[in-house]
């Protein structure tokens, strides 16, 4: 039975929360503060070999031959492998398995792995890489998605259609054409979003070991332990029960560690071959080429609205640059359309999204997967609608509010919705009414809104099992051990699980310890993506703890000969509510329950309800709950240099119940930072050969303490009926509207609409020149004729 059927959003004992809602420290905070936390590259095993990858110097080429003889002859080299040794295709989405650990027959981007070496140390491995001889036959390289769309030969991946299309989705809801015909106003425009990457400070790393019984253990910096487990079994042709995958402490991910990667298969294979542990740590440059970051998109939008600002229809056509492999691209293509249908209601909507392959590093899910780009385009266009109709930009967003406990035009169920409160909060905090449109030239405020999923009911591989599972083990000392497959990638999911179990069982936090993301020890969870962990693992944790609580309460009620309602577990004790003098420490309560019922433990799980529209793809983007966000960005534009400065951002985010407001604020702040960063500074760009323009943390300009705006995180708690104690996601939603709010602020500051990211000084200056030219032309026209502004 799924946990969602068993509890509501209220506190477990019917009144105030004991643990939830407070700014507790994280369960692993001090381990990280003291350097004790073990990350994957901190693992050093006796006799461990070091592996390196030989990568393609060409963007698109057939492999004619590979000669590894000289490399194998170098002393200290223990194994050299090529694509022929690991030929099985894999991919995170079962329908689009188009990757191999090492290239088979052809390479598809500069950096595509071709061969691997394991040696006694990295220096020897690098020496051996240089001794491998590869002969390539060069092919035409596609670097422009438009060309890849129009030209079929050569194909990057052989497909039945003989073209370079990775995925195409077109869906329509309501009568878009009628609305475009009859609406008072139609705004139409082109928008583009560039590439950006995750930039987690920990580079990808994996360590593999095969023990004397042949059991393979892989430690990996992954955010999807379960999918890596499945992929390893598939590629190595090894029964999954002979493989153990462990995620140690993880140094950031943001979606960049949610595919199975070459290093996991290669280290495992080489550990099997050599009988020695094998580690591979990617260089920062390799991390840039591994990528899986934000898809560049070219977007054409039409928005139809009536004079009162009510949106009648939205029509979108999107070209998505997928890079060289599918990754999550099938989902990306759906998300680019499916996730736009809130926080505003519109009666008609159509999108046509096409993802094409190009010979560049593969794109994938980066924080706000697939929906950050369309959100940018639409929110900038909505601002233009407001401008043309003479409606305040916040007011037009209120007028189109979707509402709560309703349905979107594409059939997604909406439960709680705190969007109006988000707008109220940022409006008040930024003094919008006093300042918007009234600041001196060059300074401005802009607003935007967005929504995002709290997990999706699409489980990547079709199955009827729970999406999240939890196991609890009780010790006679009073300690509760929590086993969860959930991946704590820094967002604090292990802490959240501990808070929930402590709340439910009335324990002090130090009596709960969490073991996570170890496939031998923990029940399956699908992983840290789509902002699903707090919602799904959280619900599973409450489910498991509630079952355990029932046993403990029953044992005490029998012992004290009182009704069960009189027994309360709180603050590390079991208490008789009507006779508080009668109480025992939790450990004694657990011992009583163990004596009464046998060895104590419990399991819990979560699965989503049946959701989504009744059409092909209708479940992709269907979520048990949606988060909502509003941003206001303050901007200063230097009209001489085109330089943009963002002194302050206000972000209000509806996360349902804030299980720990300090951690929620941390997610909001990190999201805002990342959104502003990709809008202004970062660019994951390839040159005309397909070579990365700057694959280092110096050239790829991630903001420092000095570049980052002041961020005010404001929490809205709509308390969702199905979230764990009412919680929804907080890790991805608060990125989305930061970027269009910045564009809208630039319009308020100096009257230019920036529709193409990133917002470089050159683009600002060009837009200002264009605006001045337009104004000059208008001035000369208006001196001869009087004109009426068209609406």
């Amino acid at each position, binding site marked *: 039975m799924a946990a969602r059927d068993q509890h509501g959003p209220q506190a477990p004992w019917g009144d105030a929360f004991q643990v939830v809602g407070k700014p507790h420290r994280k369960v692993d905070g001090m381990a990280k503060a003291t350097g004790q936390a073990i990350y994957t*590259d901190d693992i050093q095993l006796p006799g461990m070999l070091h592996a390196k990858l030989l990568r393609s110097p060409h963007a698109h080429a057939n492999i004619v031959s590979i000669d590894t003889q000289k490399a194998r002859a170098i002393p200290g080299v223990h194994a050299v492998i090529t694509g022929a040794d690991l030929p099985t295709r894999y991919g995170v989405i079962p329908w689009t398995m188009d990757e191999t650990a090492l290239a088979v027959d052809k390479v598809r981007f500069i950096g595509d792995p071709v061969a691997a070496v394991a040696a006694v140390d990295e220096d020897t491995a690098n020496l051996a890489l240089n001794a491998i001889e590869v002969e390539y036959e060069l092919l035409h390289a596609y670097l422009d998605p438009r060309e890849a769309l129009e030209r079929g030969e050569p194909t990057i991946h052989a497909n039945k259609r003989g073209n370079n299309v990775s995925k195409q989705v077109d869906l329509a809801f309501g009568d878009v054409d009628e609305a475009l015909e009859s609406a008072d106003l139609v705004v139409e425009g082109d928008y583009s979003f560039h590439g950006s990457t995750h930039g987690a*400070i920990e580079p990808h790393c994996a360590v593999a070991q095969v023990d004397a019984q042949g059991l393979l253990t892989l430690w990996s910096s992954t955010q999807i332990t379960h999918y890596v487990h499945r992929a390893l079994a598939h590629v190595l042709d090894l029964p999954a029960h002979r493989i153990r995958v462990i995620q140690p402490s993880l140094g950031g991910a943001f979606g960049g560690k949610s595919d199975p990667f070459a290093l996991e298969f290669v280290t495992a294979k080489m550990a099997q071959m050599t009988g020695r542990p094998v580690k591979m740590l990617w260089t920062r440059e390799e991390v840039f080429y591994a990528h899986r970051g934000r898809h560049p998109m070219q977007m054409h939008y039409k928005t139809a609205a009536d004079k009162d600002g009510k949106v009648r229809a939205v029509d979108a056509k999107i070209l998505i640059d997928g890079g060289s492999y599918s990754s999550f691209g099938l989902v990306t293509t759906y998300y680019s359309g499916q996730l736009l249908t809130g926080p505003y209601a519109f009666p008609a909507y159509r999108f046509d999204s096409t993802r094409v392959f190009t010979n560049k590093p593969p794109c994938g899910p980066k924080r706000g997967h697939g929906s950050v780009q369309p959100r940018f385009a639409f929110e900038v266009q909505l601002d233009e609608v407001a401008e043309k109709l003479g409606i305040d930009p916040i007011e037009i967003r209120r007028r189109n509010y979707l509402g709560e406990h309703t349905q979107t035009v594409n059939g997604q169920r909406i439960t709680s919705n705190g969007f109006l409160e988000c707008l109220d909060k940022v409006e008040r905090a930024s003094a919008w009414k006093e300042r918007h449109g009234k600041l001196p030239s060059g300074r401005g405020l802009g607003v935007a809104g967005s929504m995002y999923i709290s997990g999706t009911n699409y489980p990547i591989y079709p199955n009827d099992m729970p999406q999240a599972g939890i196991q609890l083990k009780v010790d006679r000392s009073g300690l509760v051990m929590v086993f969860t497959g959930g991946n704590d990638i820094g967002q604090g999911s292990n802490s959240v699980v501990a808070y929930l179990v402590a709340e439910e069982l009335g324990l002090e936090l130090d009596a709960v310890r969490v073991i996570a993301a170890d496939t031998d020890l923990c029940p399956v969870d699908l992983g840290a993506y789509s902002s699903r962990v707090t919602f799904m693992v959280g619900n599973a944790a409450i489910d498991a703890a509630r079952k355990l609580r029932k046993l403990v309460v029953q044992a005490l009620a029998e012992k004290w000969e009182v009704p069960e309602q009189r027994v309360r577990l709180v603050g590390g004790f079991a208490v008789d509510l009507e006779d508080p003098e009668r109480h025992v420490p939790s450990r004694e309560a657990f011992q009583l329950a163990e004596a009464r019922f046998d060895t104590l433990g419990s399991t819990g799980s979560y699965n989503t309800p049946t959701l989504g529209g009744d059409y092909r793809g209708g479940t992709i983007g269907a979520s048990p709950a949606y988060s909502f966000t509003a941003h206001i960005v303050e901007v200063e534009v230097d009209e001489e240099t085109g330089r943009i400065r963002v002194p302050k951002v206000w972000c209000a985010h509806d996360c349902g119940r804030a299980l720990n407001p300090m951690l929620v604020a941390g997610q909001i702040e990190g999201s805002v930072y990342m959104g502003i960063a990709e809008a202004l500074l970062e660019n994951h760009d390839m040159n005309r050969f397909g070579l990365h323009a700057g694959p280092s943390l110096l050239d790829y300009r991630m903001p420092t303490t000095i570049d980052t705006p002041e961020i005010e995180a404001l929490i809205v708690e709509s308390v969702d009926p199905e979230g764990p104690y009412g919680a929804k996601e907080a890790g991805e939603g608060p990125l989305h509207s930061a970027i269009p709010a910045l564009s809208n602020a630039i319009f308020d500051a100096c009257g230019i609409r920036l529709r193409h990211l990133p917002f470089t000084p050159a683009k600002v200056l060009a837009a200002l020149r264009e605006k001045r030219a337009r104004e000059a032309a208008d001035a000369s026209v208006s001196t001869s004729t009087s004109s009426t502004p068209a609406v």
Partner: protein
Amino acid sequence: MRVIRFVLNGDPVETAAPAHWTLLELLRYGLKLTGSKQGCDKGDCGACTVLVGGKPILACLSLAARAEGQEITTIEGLMPLHKSRGGSGADPVQEAFDACGALQCGFCQPGMMLSTRALLNQHPQPSREQIQAALSGNLCRCTGYTQILQAVETAIAQSTGAPAPQPAWARDRELQGQEPQS
């Protein structure tokens, strides 16, 4: 190989390392002190920051031989050194980072906290701008720096007995009368 003698987290060390090893390699792989992190190996990210003679340096850009005769502090040393001076618990910087939520993935934080420690040793009460400048060589990808700055200012406030600065989210909740304290 080259013999190197130095003081590491208060203790004398005599060790040997290949001549081309960086200080980061010596610490992480030679001496197994893995708290210092490698984020870029090019001096761009600051995750490898350690203190040499109390000054923050990039261990990935320093040869191991640079340690000769120096006093070096790594993240592993902060708490023991604090305790050896009669302090309780961890270094106030570590406590403040933990209490303020500044440790998300935690990977950049050893370097960040050592840069902070070096700053506070030199300027016990720096301005916001001085803090930002001192930490501008340490990239963090998780926090947007907000809770890091909060943590540094909390550590400063604690050293002077002043009340800790309140974050925006807490002020906002207090306005709504819903601010619970842990």
